[in-house]
């Protein structure tokens, strides 16, 4: 059965064109799907179990989507709620939804799909040989693992939709699962369902006007058709096929729970000047595995920033850093009894190699240089203490013994900033499941004036 999926934007919190959304709603979609996150901003969100987007931005956009859902009378699904899709961010999104339902006077059935994984489940799977590493995979250190999520697939979204929910708030899912779920369950072509979902998962990024956000995909038995909802946007065979390159290490193959999408034989053709038809992509079934993401604490950080404007120091910045570092390591050992086995101290030269580090192959003649000192220690107290210890030297240390003490520019008081925990990604693995639902759970809640809480 043909299935029409409306995708308001690539992620909740980034904004979308409201007129384009209204146009999409008027075209009577069967479902509205939006993504709520990714790992792209780094490990902090997963490590801390919090959203990277502001509550205010999330709530204002979600309000518009909840109104669109009520108008369309179809389910609204968010995947990877709250950036990382831990149970805590699913509940955060649920609270926002309940608040909005009250404000909007909506009665709703809400399904929450939870993707967080207890360490014990991963430990059991590891012991049973049901965990495979991807390349490159960090060593699994069970006792250091913090938050872990498994990426849900289409089966989990289908199970949540089967409850009759008006709104599905899903924890970590693959980018494509929310969009592919309904077309797959209605018997549309599997290759087309996954491929169309991949094309639409970043919203209008597959069109000529990426910031307009809203995209419609029509799925059927032979493929899919994609159309941007903003009148200023167009999809072309090039804009659509080029989207397979985006944030994808392999532009022809996309692994999902239970198989992979192969687009090698896909054909992209223009139906008119704004719609593109895609056929020929295939779905290759395989073992049922879910990808795992995990974070762990790698220390606690304090930073310090100084700016060198004096040309003598700008010209000799690396030599100054080398001399300063050697001096500080000795001072820290003498005064605190710590060696570099206990902490790390790194200075980065912003304006010389700040972004690329040792890969940088250009030199220039900068007006000034930022010196970013980063301390990573075993506790915040220790990192902060090292920061205070080095602070006067970062301010005044001379390049040679026989010159006057310099004083550099500090933009802040205090000069040091405690950054809290440093999280790092700790898993790049898949877990085999006999039954897709074993590692996930769904909770259904009905809210509304006539239904007691």
């Amino acid at each position, binding site marked *: 059965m043909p299935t029409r999926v409306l995708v308001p934007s690539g992620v909740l919190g980034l904004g979308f064109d409201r007129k384009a959304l209204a146009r999409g709603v008027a075209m009577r979609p069967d479902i509205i799907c939006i993504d709520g996150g990714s*790992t*792209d*901003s*780094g*490990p*902090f969100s997963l490590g801390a179990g919090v959203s990277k987007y502001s509550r205010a931005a999330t709530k204002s956009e979600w309000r518009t989507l909840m109104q669109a859902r009520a108008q369309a009378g179809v389910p609204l699904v968010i995947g990877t709620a709250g950036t990382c899709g831990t149970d805590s961010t699913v509940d955060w999104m649920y609270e926002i939804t309940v608040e909005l339902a009250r404000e909007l006077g909506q009665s709703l059935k809400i399904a929450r799909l939870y993707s967080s994984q207890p360490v014990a489940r991963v430990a059991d799977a590891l012991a049973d040989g049901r965990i495979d590493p*991807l*390349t*490159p*995979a*960090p060593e699994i250190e069970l006792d250091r693992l913090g938050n872990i999520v498994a990426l849900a697939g289409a089966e989990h979204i289908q199970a949540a939709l089967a409850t009759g929910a008006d709104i599905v708030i899903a924890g970590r899912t693959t980018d494509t699962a929310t969009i592919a779920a309904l077309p797959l369950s209605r018997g549309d072509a599997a290759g087309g369902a996954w491929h169309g979902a991949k094309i639409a998962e970043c919203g209008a990024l597959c069109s000529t006007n990426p910031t307009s956000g809203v995209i419609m995909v029509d799925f059927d038995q032979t493929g899919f058709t994609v159309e941007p909802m903003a009148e200023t946007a167009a999809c072309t065979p*090039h804009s659509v*096929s*080029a989207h397979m*390159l*985006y*944030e*994808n*290490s*392999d*532009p*022809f193959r996309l692994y999902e729970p239970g198989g992979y999408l192969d687009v090698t034989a896909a054909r992209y053709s223009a139906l008119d000047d704004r719609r593109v038809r895609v056929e020929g992509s295939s779905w290759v079934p395989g073992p049922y595995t879910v990808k795992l*993401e995990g974070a762990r604490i*790698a*220390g606690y950080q304090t930073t310090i920033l100084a700016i060198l404007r004096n040309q003598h120091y700008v010209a000799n910045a690396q030599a100054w850093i080398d001399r300063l570092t050697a001096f500080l390591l000795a001072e820290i050992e003498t005064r605190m009894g710590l060696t570099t086995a206990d902490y*790390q101290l*790194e200075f*980065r030269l912003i304006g010389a190699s*700040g*972004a*690329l*580090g*040792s*890969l940088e*192959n*250009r030199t220039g003649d900068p007006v000034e240089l930022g010196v970013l000192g*980063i301390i*990573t220690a075993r506790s915040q107290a220790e990192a902060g203490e090292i920061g205070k210890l080095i602070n006067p030297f970062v301010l005044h240390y001379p390049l040679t013994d026989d010159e006057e003490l310099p004083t550099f520019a500090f933009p802040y008081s205090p000069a040091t900033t405690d950054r809290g925990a*440093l*999280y*790092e*990604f700790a898993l*790049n693995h898949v877990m085999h499941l006999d039954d897709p639902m074993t590692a996930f759970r769904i909770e259904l809640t009905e809210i509304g004036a006539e239904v007691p809480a």
Partner: protein
Amino acid sequence: MTQNRDQGTLGDLVLKVRSKNAGPFWVTIDIFCDRPEVFARVRNTLSSATVAQLYQVPEQLLKRFDIDDLRVIKFSLPRPVIQGSAADRDMHGAQYAALLEEYPLT
């Protein structure tokens, strides 16, 4: 276009070079060549060994896709440092492109 431009960098020659994370452990670099003759030239002159050397990764870990239909050459490589680790300097991996963009293509 002019002789001078043709002797310049890869970035001068092509439409766009972009890089981005492909998950926390990989970075992917897309070279949009736009014109077929530019695509052919880049494909024939830019070696995988050069790219591996620029990003200091073993060449056998580099994935290369020469995509004729799109006139795109794509490289994917394990990130030189894992995204967000203490040594990472570029959370989104989008500045890695500069190294290829500035590569002198002779």
